[in-house]
């Protein structure tokens, strides 16, 4: 009985393993919103201010056996910025910061993925923000993958990168402690 169960498990495992050698395409779970693009910036050097972009979309391809062949693409609606304060959000959308009237979308598209250890990688890619395109490196971490309870297959990652506001032509000066913003992407994809 036990032997049979083990044999079944082993078979299931090898089948699953076989499936994983093909790089699979995933779409970010926007419908269930198991995905977040947050940012974090220092307020005067005294505390962290967090905000989020509520509307974005993206996809990635991923194969645990060949992480180097992974690809990511994300498009963000910059007007969806939300820091839980209407007057500040209005200011963030203005020409002082994101200039969303002129630059309604921000995009990230990976150009290279380098494995840096067990479940970690550096994703290099081009970030277009406020009309400026610059290469950035996202330090990414594989969180987990597997069957979901509803008949699908999911994989999730978290990654972050730091940007200098001036590099993306963001004019407002928030003081010496607030020259950089950290972007934190936490996404779950549903295999197609």
């Amino acid at each position, binding site marked *: 009985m036990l032997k049979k169960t083990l044999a079944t498990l082993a078979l299931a495992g090898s089948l699953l393993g076989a499936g994983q050698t093909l790089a699979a395409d995933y779409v970010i779970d926007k419908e269930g919103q198991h995905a977040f693009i947050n940012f974090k910036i220092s307020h005067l050097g005294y505390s962290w201010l967090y905000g989020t972009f509520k509307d974005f979309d993206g996809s990635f391809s991923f194969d645990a056996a060949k992480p180097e062949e992974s690809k990511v693409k994300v498009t963000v609606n910059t*007007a969806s910025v939300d820091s839980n*304060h*209407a*007057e500040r*959000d*209005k200011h963030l*959308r203005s020409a002082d910061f994101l200039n969303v009237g002129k630059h309604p979308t921000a995009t990230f598209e990976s150009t290279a993925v380098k494995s840096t250890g067990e479940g970690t990688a550096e994703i290099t890619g081009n970030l277009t923000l406020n009309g400026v395109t610059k290469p950035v490196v996202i330090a990414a971490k594989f969180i987990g993958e597997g069957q979901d309870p509803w008949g699908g297959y999911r994989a999730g990652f978290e990654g972050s990168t730091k940007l200098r506001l001036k590099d993306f032509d963001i004019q*407002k*000066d928030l*003081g010496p402690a607030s020259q950089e913003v950290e972007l934190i992407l936490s996404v779950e994809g549903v295999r197609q």
Partner: protein
Amino acid sequence: MQWHNSPARYGLVSILLHWGVALTVFGLFGLGLWMVGLDYYSSWYRSAPALHKAIGLCLFAAMLLRLVWRFLSPPPPLLDSYGPLTRLGARLGHGLLYLGLFAVIISGYLISTADGRGIEVFGLFEVPALVSGLPNQEDVAGLVHEYLAWGLVSLSVLHALAALKHHFIDRDVTLKRMLGCSR
């Protein structure tokens, strides 16, 4: 001087309300333009918008009082010497000034209350948010507020020029009676 309006002249209440509102509108306009350009480290960065909003809400109270007073103590009629075009222009202009004032005030209120936050008035009390969470509320209200503020101030300048024309060209009592004289 009498408090109430009479068929020949404006009373003290209307005169004070008129000039008080005029001063406040130009003041808030200048304050508004100045405050949105302030440096983050300016000592006025937080207090200037707070003042703008608090004074603006007091202006709202003054405008309500003005409407009530207009009903209780009607203003003197337009001068007999006005031609039909002047009458139409005066009625239209004054109507638009009332409308514009309320629209600028309400749009400003809708910016600050878009996320359900109330507005603090001089630390004395808070005016609650009545309408919040409309789609893009703070952005739409902000644009409307900016354009209408320019419109209102332009119309006010036109209004002042018209009063000066009455005084210096037509040589009638239009301006003088808003200063408390009857002839």
